[in-house]
């Protein structure tokens, strides 16, 4: 059983909802990221999504675009990310999902990528610009290396495609809660509940809800609809704020701790 499946099982037993945090690797430095992974894991974040910086992040809003620019200023690459994950894994079992665009993976080589990710201790992969229709080649390689492959369902996903996405997705299903790029939203879409219920009527697999969640009230609200909540831009904004602070990772974790509270 994968670490991701395991954590969702244990959350279920405890009757709790999961908290998933997104951070961009190498923002502002790899060392910061490494420390932040440890801090976030200490305060009880359930799953971490580690973003691979890509020069043209067309599904991301301004906050994550800037994070990616900071990470690419010192050429953060997939190999660097695997190195820090290897170190983290010596002491830490937090489930890790690599969140990436396809081209960096494609250039690394699909076979090598899947093998090295698995060796480093990555648990799952989410490729933002890879819909299931295009994943025929990659999917078996990811599976063979015992990684989970997470696909996205969005408010615009047609019912005719939903069954296939739900079937292929392993670990969990990522429900994107609003039409748009990543970024914080003041209002959470009221359709979420209906759409997530519809997904849940099709599958036992856990559903995580993300895109736009930015404060404890929203965490509480959204977690009621699914099995886990994802927060990204709101955390990345704090990383920017504390990027030059020697206690930066701790301060970011303090912020995340407040987001976590409604789930405890």
């Amino acid at each position, binding site marked *: 059983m994968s670490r991701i499946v395991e954590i969702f099982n244990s959350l279920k037993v405890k009757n709790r909802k999961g908290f998933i945090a997104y951070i961009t690797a190498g923002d502002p430095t790899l060392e910061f990221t490494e420390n932040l992974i440890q801090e976030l894991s200490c305060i009880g974040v359930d799953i971490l999504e580690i973003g691979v910086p890509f020069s*043209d992040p*067309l599904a991301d809003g301004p906050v994550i675009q800037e994070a990616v620019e900071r990470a690419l200023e010192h050429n953060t690459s997939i190999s660097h990310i695997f190195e820090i994950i290897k170190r983290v894994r010596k002491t830490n079992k937090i489930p890790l999902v690599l969140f990436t665009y396809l081209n960096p993976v*494609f250039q690394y080589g699909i076979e090598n990528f899947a093998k090295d990710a698995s060796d480093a201790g990555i648990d799952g992969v989410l490729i933002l610009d890879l819909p299931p229709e295009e994943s025929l080649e990659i999917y078996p390689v990811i599976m063979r290396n015992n990684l989970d492959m997470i696909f996205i369902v969005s408010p*615009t996903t*047609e019912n005719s495609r939903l069954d296939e996405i739900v079937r292929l997705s392993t670990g969990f299903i990522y429900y*994107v809660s609003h039409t*748009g*790029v990543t970024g914080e939203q003041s209002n959470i879409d009221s359709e979420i509940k209906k759409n997530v219920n519809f997904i849940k009527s099709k599958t036992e697999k856990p559903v995580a809800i993300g895109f736009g969640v930015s404060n404890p009230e929203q965490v509480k609200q959204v977690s009621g609809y699914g099995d886990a909540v994802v927060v990204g831009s709101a955390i990345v904004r704090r990383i920017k704020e504390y990027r030059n602070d020697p206690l930066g990772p701790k301060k970011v974790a303090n912020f995340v701790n407040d987001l976590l509270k409604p789930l405890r």
Partner: protein
Amino acid sequence: MKHTIFPDSKGYFGQYGGRFVPELLMSALRELEQTYLSLKDDSSFCAEISRLNATYIGRPTPLYCASRLSEYIGGGKIYLKREDLCHTGAHKINNAIGQILLALRMKKKRIVAETGAGQHGVATATVAAKFGVECHIYMGTEDIRRQSLNVFRMQLLGTKVIGVESGSKTLKDAINEALRDWVTNVKTTHYILGSVCGPHPFPMIVRDFQSVIGRETRQQVLDCEGRLPDLLVACVGGGSNSIGLFYPFLNDTEVKMIGVEAGGFGIHTGKHAARFAGGKIGVFQGAKTFVLQNPQGQIQETHSVSAGLDYSAIGPEHSFLHETDRCKYVSVTDDEALQAFLLLSELEGIIPALESAHAVAYLLKNPPPKGTVTVVNLSGRGDKDVLEVQRLLNEKKGKNV
């Protein structure tokens, strides 16, 4: 092999193309594909396009025998396909008209588009004005600077031009921003992509709408010469004017085709947009194709004197035609293009777009043999470029002093 069977039902030209987009866009792309496939052979839809081609764009555009240019180059006969005489001054409107009709059928109330040289932006703003649809155009701030006349034209047409500050501040960054807008407003908005790049079905739709160039050329050459041409030459940014000219000739094996990419300061300097010379296969902005990128897969910034060719990826069908060797791809530098710009102006009284000047420059370096017939796609007129050329010439003068 018949080249005209592509793309396949998944949007592939051989191994190139596809639909590599965030989940949020999948339904919009499928809707666009279904709408287009249901209309493309519909007689009333085709009649509407033909009528607008004739009465609004001014088609057919002339095929002009450039006798002084031919004589100067000293070889075969050179014809210019005068897409510069299209309404708005470039071939881009052929596609914009077609796509706005699709948008109206899909009941989309708003249009977004990217633009590099500003020609696609002007064409889109024009059809949006004609049909009374709200329009937002994304344009890199570097392109806003060097194509300022087109920015003002779009504004006159009632369009909002939004500057893009990210990355190299050119075409690829404008496409990213247009895609972000589309993702956000996908229910109400159609994205009129301006070239044969991006996810399926765009490369197919844009090619089909631009193929009017080649269909007319074929008939016109047959009328004047009684035979098919020996060579077709066109510049390649995303690749729409070139595929528009080439496509109706792809099965005529005796017709050779050359696509001219932007060589910028020269391939060896790394500052260029020659995807085949400097790039490798990757996945970018929705398609698998040749892309200029570093070994880690980060997209490289490009350079060209012409904003319309200054783009890191090439349309997937060109990657396929390159692989099968049906078409050849070469590059010319900024300086060579600039010389061709000046020469065509003086010899023929035609000021070409800097993009189109790249195609002419190829012939200056490679004179076609006597007795041959060549068609160059003059994809656009140079009015938009005169200020930038003036600046560049002054800069050169300054250096020579």
